[in-house]
């Protein structure tokens, strides 16, 4: 047992290598995400986004700063879906790998634990996927995010629904009791009330709860809209439950979960005409200066690399890399970054306003969305022909919304 302790000690202490820092001609990029644990699904999607960006940058020779190109090298830390492991990983990336900047965690919980550590070492971080409004209320100086928070994205589709004819008058809003879903449901509710849709029922329910009694009771109220904040499994259960009690609202609204292939795969024709929220789809008309010319080009590259369609999380993660790329060029910082250069990089990020394949990136420098990307237009999507199609706002719409929704029993 003593030997074991001694061995472990050596192993732990022995892992502090002294890195030769003097003239490094590449960027060290930390990647903290959840590759295992409950959030591994999403975590691995973010990893793909970050990896794809790194691959594309290096194929182009690297990040161009003052006419010279510096490749990037990624250093991973698995947060294991645990805030403590995320913080630990951040500590390692900061002190052992001495990374120049960090591409951030998948979930808001891990982000909230990682951010203070990086604050301490003054290392800029962009998360490509955390979308809880909480993060931005903390006003971390070095933390940014490419995906707008759910209370920003959630209101757009409600507004879009309110503009359809005949206008929906009543709604039932339900949300699962986790941070993301609850914030989504609250955003739906606030937006509905703002657009003159009467919210007949608003309930936050325990995650995984069988909702059929609640929906049976709701059915009696004949709501025009049923809006639900939840994750993939819960979304599938909700649609199946509505199907089982045979109630078709005029519109069924959820958040980004409907854009996941699993949603359509699991529900087939029952997934049709479900509304969702997103900020990016492969068909979004965008124009990028760096790496990918538009959304389609990115989608093709992603499809080629991973064999599955890219979703907006993955795109947001690749865009996070691009944001760093652009900011480094503007700040004129070259690796290795010292403290002053990291600060310059952070300032450049705050000042950034660029067009990318992902859309516009413009981090807010004040207010409740502090350092979240508010350059994007939130999108309303609807499943049509087994894929998400943008139906609003008008300038991006690919097809008109199908409304009111076809009753379950009339579908082919």
């Amino acid at each position, binding site marked *: *047992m*003593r030997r*074991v*302790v001694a061995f*472990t*000690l050596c*192993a*732990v*202490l022995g*892992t*502090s290598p002294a890195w030769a820092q003097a003239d490094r001609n590449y960027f060290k990029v930390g990647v903290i995400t959840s*590759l*295992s644990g*409950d959030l*591994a699904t999403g975590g691995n999607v973010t990893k793909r986004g970050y990896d794809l960006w790194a691959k594309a940058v290096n194929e182009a020779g690297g990040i161009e700063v003052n006419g010279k190109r510096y490749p990037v090298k990624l250093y*991973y830390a*698995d947060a*294991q*879906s*645990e*805030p*403590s*492991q995320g*913080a*630990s990983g951040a*500590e*390692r990336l900061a*002190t*052992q790998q001495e990374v120049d900047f960090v591409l951030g965690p998948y979930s808001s*919980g891990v982000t*909230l*634990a990682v951010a*203070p*550590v990086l*604050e*301490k070492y003054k290392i800029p971080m962009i998360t490509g996927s955390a979308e*809880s409004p*909480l993060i931005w209320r*903390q006003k971390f100086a070095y933390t940014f995010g490419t995906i707008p928070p759910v209370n920003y994205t959630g209101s757009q589709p409600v507004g879009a629904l309110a503009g359809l004819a005949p206008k929906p008058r009543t709604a039932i809003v339900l949300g699962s*009791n*986790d*941070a993301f*879903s*609850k*914030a989504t449901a609250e955003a739906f509710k606030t937006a509905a009330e703002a657009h003159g849709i009467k919210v007949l029922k608003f309930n936050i329910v*325990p995650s995984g709860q069988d909702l059929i009694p609640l929906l049976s009771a709701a059915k009696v109220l004949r709501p025009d809209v049923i809006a639900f904040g939840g994750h993939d499994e819960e979304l599938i259960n909700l649609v199946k439950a509505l199907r089982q009690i045979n109630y078709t609202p005029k519109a069924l609204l959820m958040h980004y979960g409907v854009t996941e292939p699993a949603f359509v795969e699991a529900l087939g024709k029952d997934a049709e005409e479900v509304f969702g929220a997103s900020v990016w789809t492969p068909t979004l008309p965008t124009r990028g200066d760096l790496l990918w010319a538009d959304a389609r080009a990115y989608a093709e590259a992603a499809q080629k690399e991973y064999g599955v369609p890219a979703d907006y999380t993955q795109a947001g993660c690749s865009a996070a890399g691009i944001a760093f790329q652009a900011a480094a060029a503007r700040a004129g910082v070259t690796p290795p970054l010292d403290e002053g250069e990291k600060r310059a990089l952070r300032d450049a990020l705050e000042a950034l306003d660029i067009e990318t394949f992902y859309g516009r990136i413009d981090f807010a420098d004040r207010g409740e969305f502090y350092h979240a990307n508010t350059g994007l237009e939130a999108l309303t999507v609807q499943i049509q022909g087994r894929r998400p199609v943008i139906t609003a706002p008008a300038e991006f719409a690919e097809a008109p919304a199908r409304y009111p929704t076809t009753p379950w029993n009339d579908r082919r």
Partner: protein
Amino acid sequence: MRRSRALWAGITAVVFAVIPLLTRDTFALRVVTEAMMWIGLAVAWDVLGGYTGYLNFGHGAFFGLGAYTTAVLMMRGHWPFALALAAGGVLAGAAAVVAGLPTLRLKGAYFAIATWALARAVQQLALVLEFTGGPDGMRLPPFLNPQFFYYLMWALVSVIFVVLWILLEHSAFGLKLQAIREDEEGAMALGLKPTTIKIQAFVLSTVPAGILGGVYAYWITFIDPASVLGDLVTDQSVVMAVFGGLGTLVGPAVGAVLIYAFKTFFWAYLSEYQVLYLIILGTVIALSVVFLPDGLIGLLTGRGRAEAPRSPEPADENPPELREAAP
């Protein structure tokens, strides 16, 4: 044997005390700090699980209770950390009394299930209450001093270890627990009040968990129902204690160090194989029940071999529970 063990314990403690002086590596400090936390959790779990024979599958609830109490008192009540931490320990102990009263009168099977349910109940509570922040969790003021947390954890875990060592190995209490574990009916005939003693053990096991939870909250600066009230703490404490050796103090400590080291190594270098971790963890625990019933420590000390077969009858059938069920 006893003296040399104490000597080695002392040396280990001193080594741990000087580590921060030897290294400026804050990541390594973090790793060792967390390893110590797991030692404390696994050893505390073993008070009830190993010494008393009641498997607490809700250890994480008490850890989380401590974390939340500390966070709430610091953030909403503006208590100083030390007081909030103590309150976390007290509350975890009080919760053990409340949870233990109906369940510790019963056979271990009920207790195991009840504590598992309790963990989920506490998680639900944190999710629906306002002052816990619901699913959003709570942030604490960042106090990012690795040395502070290292020494705090070191001191707390040392105290926990020494207190348990004295109570369980050198005082009447430990013997009483083991007697109850082996034969509750028989213990009653000798004047022991099983329910009272079991509740005492439960409290002794959960107070450290609550305190460690409080330290965790302040250290990590963020807690939410998923991270401090999820399955992780329970799962890992059980695995560490069983793998290391139930009913000893050194066993769970060794188990904690090895499993934590394995986990850290696994995720640092083999993270592509992510979910294999669960398979390995599960297989290790299942196999150690079959092949290493006394845990690793049984193998190292030869305790397993010294023990003669348990009974002349085929050890096979008839669990004691069944026999006692008959009036």
